[in-house]
């Protein structure tokens, strides 16, 4: 084991060094817009988590179990590094091994379930994992002192902890969690891991297995009668997702330095799902972009911290309702070019949103970075954008499909423009004098949004990668 690890260490070390040098300029740029240090790690870990759920979704399974696997990886890794002086590499290997093993054990019974039943069962799995981790010490302490099973339990515990006979068993440290985990995860580790994953995904899509999983997602029964072993591939997808999530768990534990069972609750499962939803499942780039964006957003928008919940919820809602293909569908030419898929107005609106979003964040942020302090008035620029985006979406999607929609849409677009103008004036009367470019761009973006709403005609509300409705 040691020799193998040493061997890998010799190969990997230079790779990490080169990566570090190569990504340094990017990191410097990110720092300017307020993303630095661990935040970059968290973003990359989120991207890895996004990929982990992408695998199960790609195979047509809606699994929320990945927070549980993340917990398993994090705890196994942390126990090894804190109690057995293991290196990060060893922790990673064993963490992934443990997650994979458990995925194989529970996969066979669980993956017989479909759709919402699978989603519910995986939620249950995550909760069981979290509670068992929390109660592990106490439960094992009681079992250890039991005359019949005590011997075996002692042997097993001996693998995890040296002092099996301590008065209070200390393995997962109950609700307090494990502390003093060495912070060994570097950005380079994550970048290399992510690149390897990206290559893996690229090849995966063009492999026999990738095609089989896509077929299962689209029509499980037909896939089966094309000679595809559905049960096997579902388990494989679940297994791959689990080991990737476990790896993310190991990395995050060794970034934060301390973990507790409540870090892996249902909220985490929802976060992981949100990465995939935001980015879109049309391609493997989606979850990566989704993870990076969603994790970076609260940092970029720190001034809006009071509204984080509101914004997060709103984004999830808007994306799932109005952009089911996720952010990546914006990058797909078919989104902009194909006939009848997305109506012109919607495209114009989307372009406006992107422009408004960019010009709202970037100029201020760059200026803020240059001054070394954060400016408070970003609020003024961002909120009207969010409002106008909301109004415009509402206009295009809800009013125009109706025959009499034209009149209302003009009316409402006028209101939207008025509201937005009022805010613009309010903002200008405030402290904002020096940031002009942003506002010109902003104006153009707004014009596009309102214009899009005005020219909207009955659209086929059908997104690029939207699935066909299921048959009941």
């Amino acid at each position: 084991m040691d020799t193998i690890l040493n061997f890998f260490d010799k190969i990997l070390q230079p790779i990490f060094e080169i990566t570090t040098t190569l990504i340094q300029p990017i990191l410097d740029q990110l720092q300017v817009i307020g993303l630095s240090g661990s935040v970059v790690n968290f973003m990359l870990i989120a991207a890895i988590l996004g990929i982990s759920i992408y695998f199960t979704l790609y195979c047509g399974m809606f699994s929320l179990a990945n927070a549980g696997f993340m917990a398993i990886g994090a705890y196994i890794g942390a126990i090894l590094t804190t109690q057995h002086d293991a290196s990060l590499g060893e922790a990673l290997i064993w963490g992934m091994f443990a997650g994979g093993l458990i995925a194989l054990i529970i996969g066979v019974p669980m993956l017989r379930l479909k759709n919402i039943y699978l989603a519910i069962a995986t939620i249950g799995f995550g909760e069981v994992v979290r509670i068992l981790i929390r109660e592990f010490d106490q439960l094992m302490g009681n079992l250890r002192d039991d005359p019949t099973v005590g011997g075996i339990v002692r042997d097993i515990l001996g693998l995890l902890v040296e002092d099996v006979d301590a008065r209070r068993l200390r393995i997962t440290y109950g609700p307090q969690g494990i502390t003093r985990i060495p912070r060994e995860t570097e950005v380079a580790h994550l970048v290399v891991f992510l690149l390897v994953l990206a290559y893996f995904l690229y090849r995966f899509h063009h492999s026999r297995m990738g095609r089989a999983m896509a077929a299962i997602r689209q029509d499980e029964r037909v896939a089966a009668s094309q000679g595809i072993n559905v049960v096997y591939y579902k388990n494989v997808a679940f297994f791959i997702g689990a080991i990737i999530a476990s790896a993310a768990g190991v990395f995050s534990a060794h970034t934060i330095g301390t973990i507790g069972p409540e870090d892996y609750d249902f909220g985490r499962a929802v976060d992981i799902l949100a990465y995939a939803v935001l980015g879109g499942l049309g391609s493997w780039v989606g979850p990566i972009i989704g993870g990076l964006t969603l994790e970076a957003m609260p940092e970029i928008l720190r001034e809006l911290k009071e509204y984080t919940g509101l914004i997060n919820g709103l984004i999830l809602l808007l994306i799932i309702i109005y952009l089911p293909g996720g952010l990546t569908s914006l990058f797909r030419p078919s989104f902009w070019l194909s006939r009848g898929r997305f109506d012109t107005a919607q495209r114009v609106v989307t372009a406006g949103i992107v422009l408004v979003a960019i010009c709202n964040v970037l100029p201020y942020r760059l200026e803020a970075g240059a001054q070394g302090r954060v400016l408070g008035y970003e609020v003024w620029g961002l909120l009207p954008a969010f409002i106008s985006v909301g109004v415009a979406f509402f206009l295009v999607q809800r009013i125009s499909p109706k025959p009499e929609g034209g009149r209302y849409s003009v009316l409402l677009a006028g209101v939207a423009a008025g509201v937005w103008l009022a805010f613009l004036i309010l903002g200008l009367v405030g402290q904002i004098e020096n940031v002009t470019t942003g506002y010109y761009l902003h104006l153009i973006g707004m014009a596009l949004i309102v214009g899009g709403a005005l020219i909207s005609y009955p659209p086929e509300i059908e997104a690029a990668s939207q699935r066909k409705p299921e048959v009941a």
Partner: protein
Amino acid sequence: MDFLIDFFNLNDVQWVPQIVNIIWNGSLYSLFALGYALIFSVLGVLNLAHSAIFMWGAYVGLWAVCGNTVFDGQCPAVDVPVWWAIPAAMIGGGIIAILVDRIAFYPLRQRNAPRLSQLISSIGIAIMMVAIAELVFGKERLSMPLDAIPRRNFDIPDGLSIENPLDIGRIGLGMYVAEFNILLTPVRLQIIVVSLILMIFLGFIVTQTRLGQGMRTVAFSERVSSLLGVHVDNIYMIAFFISGALAGAAGMLYTLNSNVFLPSTGSELTLKGLTVIVLGGLGSIRGAVLGGYLVAAIEVYMVAATDYGGLADAVVFFLFFLVLMFRPQGILGQPLPDRA
């Protein structure tokens, strides 16, 4: 195997008070889960915003009895009888549930999107609703004044006489409560009574009325029911209203008992409600009621009869897991068509 003997140790349990605990906890769980189950059975979606409606219902009820001071984060006095909060919470919850439907579910239904998208949008709107509650009512806990809610255990007040027929019930209850060491406050009795009334009422609606027939038809197939002349969208709206009203009632009763109003109230019930409806039978109204009492019984059993009270949740989830594996339709549920 001391472990196992301990595990099923039932000798030291005080049965009467613990059964009362099961009944009132179970009533609350059932009431909460009923609305959850109703939406699942009619629309086939899991409305994870149900607990947010529950929380908003409680705040609406608080607003109804306290007045506008709640927006400043205070409730110094209760102007009207505190029980008025319950109908207010029900109406408020119902209206909010309809709004939730219009915002989060309706557009997806229109587009015939996969039902799993609706699960995600319900999560999104739940997050938003909690955030809005924080902005409107503040992040710090709110509570009604101490004397607003009758919170003493039932006892035999002075001035009651056995000669007065109206007092006999009260005396009997007080004696019973004292004799068996039962923790039974008016609020808890209220929870039990209101829940039972609402459950029976809902049962009546679903099985005996045209509306219930419509709901069952829609649950069976949206297409078929529109062919039969059922106004599907109206049915959805009514289902959401009823579900929200049940959530509002549950939220109000829950917070009347604890007198703590927080935007995070009910978040722990999202998953507990899920276990309830899964154990009872997804989409089955009777199942939700059974599941509520079952989960309460398991929790009480784990605490009262074993030394592993902390594992109560794990046991519930483990059972939940087993039920899904081997009887996905739950204990009372009918085998369902494969709905997403």
